């Protein structure tokens, strides 16, 4: 019970989480055909990044415009494993060097590069999905937060890193698949991930991991660490002079957010079947921030809802007005920041406060004799 209370501070939080879980776990799988459900699964894989952004941006006040980097690193780890499996010597017998991924063969590579070797192993790949984004984030975070780089500068540097990584992948076609990305992924340890059944199973794996990650984030937020995070955001100096290592706290949060993003990337690849640099550059990284902003950067459930909502409208609008979509999304972002900075979840909470205030105001105008006995003796 105490643990439950650590996860959900108010009944409202528990109810909203339960509603969201019901929606993605039961209602959507029953209501949607597999093709649409697979799309939802793709959107939900962005939800992992959203949860990370709630911790990093909403709670700790660090805006990262480079979360696509970690999403991409996790995704590429998964894609490399799947690509190696898809490139067995029999299937690739017509290549001049059979047994290596097709794009390497096109680029006149004659042997598998050394850094690809470990990705023959599934346990290593699973580990790498967390460790690679986590390690990169830790090094970037440590270097920057130790020097007290923050705010706009941090956002710009992370954006530059997103650009560097996407260009780096783009420019090394032989090693990374270049602009096309890593495509034509087929099986996961012999299991065909393109079949309808596999897509349904993967959807549920994605949903369960997402809900698990959400609970993990909620746990962090409601412990002392969560309070320290907000304290760092609002009163950095005070926290430092209460004996906390502020740089380490920020680095840790950045690392956790990156690991979550990496997991999201891996699940994206499993459900969509490819990975390319177009998913990790500047624009996608900013899009990820918009998802969280629209849903509510302070609320874990809000950020996940934001990912679904923005992506649904994206697919609806971009089918009808492909040219206008980017403007519409930019406009939405500006509107959200200006009019409801805490996103949809913020509106929800605010509505509750307004109702309470209105009730309190009404109570004040009622005659005193009518209200006091009711308040003190509800049994009457």
């Amino acid at each position: 019970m105490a643990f439950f209370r650590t996860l959900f501070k108010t009944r409202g939080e528990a109810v909203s989480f339960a509603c969201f879980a019901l929606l993605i776990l039961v209602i959507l799988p029953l209501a949607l055909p597999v093709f649409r459900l697979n799309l939802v699964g793709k959107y939900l894989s962005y939800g992992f990044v959203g949860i990370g952004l709630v911790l990093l941006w909403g709670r700790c006040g660090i805006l990262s415009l480079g979360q696509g980097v970690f999403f991409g690193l996790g995704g590429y780890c998964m894609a490399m494993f799947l690509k190696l499996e898809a490139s067995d010597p029999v299937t690739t017998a017509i290549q001049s060097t059979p047994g290596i991924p097709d794009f390497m063969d096109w680029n006149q590579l004659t042997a598998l590069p050394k850094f690809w070797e470990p990705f023959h192993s599934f346990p290593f790949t699973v580990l790498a999905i967390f460790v690679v984004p986590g390690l990169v984030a830790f090094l970037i975070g440590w270097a920057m937060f130790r020097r007290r780089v923050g705010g706009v500068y941090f956002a710009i540097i992370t954006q530059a890193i997103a650009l560097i990584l996407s260009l780096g992948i783009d420019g090394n076609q032989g090693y990374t698949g270049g602009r096309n990305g890593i495509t034509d992924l087929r099986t996961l340890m012999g299991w065909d991930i393109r079949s309808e059944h596999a897509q349904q199973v993967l959807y549920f794996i994605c949903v369960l991991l997402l809900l698990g990650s959400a609970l993990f984030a909620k746990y962090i937020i409601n412990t002392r660490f969560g309070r320290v995070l907000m304290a760092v955001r609002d009163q950095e100096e005070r926290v430092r002079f209460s004996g906390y290592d502020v740089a380490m706290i920020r680095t840790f949060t950045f690392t956790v957010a990156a690991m979550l993003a990496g997991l999201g990337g891996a699940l994206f690849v499993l459900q969509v079947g490819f990975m390319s640099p177009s998913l990790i550059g500047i624009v996608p990284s900013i899009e990820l921030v918009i998802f969280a902003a629209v849903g509510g950067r302070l609320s874990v459930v809000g950020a996940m809802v934001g990912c679904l909502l923005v992506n649904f409208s994206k697919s609806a609008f971009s089918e009808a007005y492909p040219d206008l979509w980017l403007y519409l999304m930019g406009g939405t972002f500006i509107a959200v920041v200006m009019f409801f900075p805490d996103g949809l979840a913020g509106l929800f909470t605010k509505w509750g406060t307004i109702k309470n205030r209105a009730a309190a105001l009404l109570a004040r105008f009622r005659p005193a004799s009518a209200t006091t006995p009711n308040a003190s003796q509800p049994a009457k």
Partner: protein
Amino acid sequence: MSTPKDYVLEVEDLGVSFDGFKAVDGFNFYLDANTVHVIIGPNGAGKTTVLDLICGKTKATSGTVKFKGKEMRGMREYCIVRAGIGRKFQNPSIYENLTVLENLEISHPAGRGIFGCLLFRRTPAIQQQIESTAAQIGLQDKLDTEAGILSHGQKQWLEIGMLLMQEPEIIMLDEPVAGMSVRERTETAALIRRISANRSVIVIEHDMEFVREIADRVTVMHLGQILSEGSMETVSADPKVIEVYIGH
């Protein structure tokens, strides 16, 4: 001369220059155990800078800061705090969105590391320390009040309480009674006397009446250097001090 061990804090030849401007220069300062030592001086004398240098917020360019014989200069801020030097800022810096209880709890030294934070539980011992600290700063009835709606004076006390939670051996207060009412000043003076029973307190203050009430020892600063030092009587009789204060 006494041996170094007699002092809680020994500051020798401390100096810092900002682009050639020497904000603090050749500053010597010895702090006895269980005393209230007040630093006074006109605006721009370098009083706050001295506190910044001691607690590591500003890096000194020369000199030594020895706490119980151990060099503090060059250590990171949070390490200096963990060693036992607490610092209160001029404007009340408290966590407005948290309750008084949470403000005090977050300042408790248990669980300052990442995993300590994640696994922190409020034990009965900590609860008791929170309650006794709250009683000391007169906020025992406000434990569940959001800190943001406290009065200005109560916020200042809360921040002092947050320092007390760390059980530091030295507490540094930067103008603790600025903006307080007369009654709040009296209570703050009593509070400072109380907390100096088992620790040393360095206070920066402008208000002479208040200084007279709390100070065991006074250091007068002027233009980054020490002008005079001693008891309140000696200092206020010093012609150099009178000249600086009246000639200003």
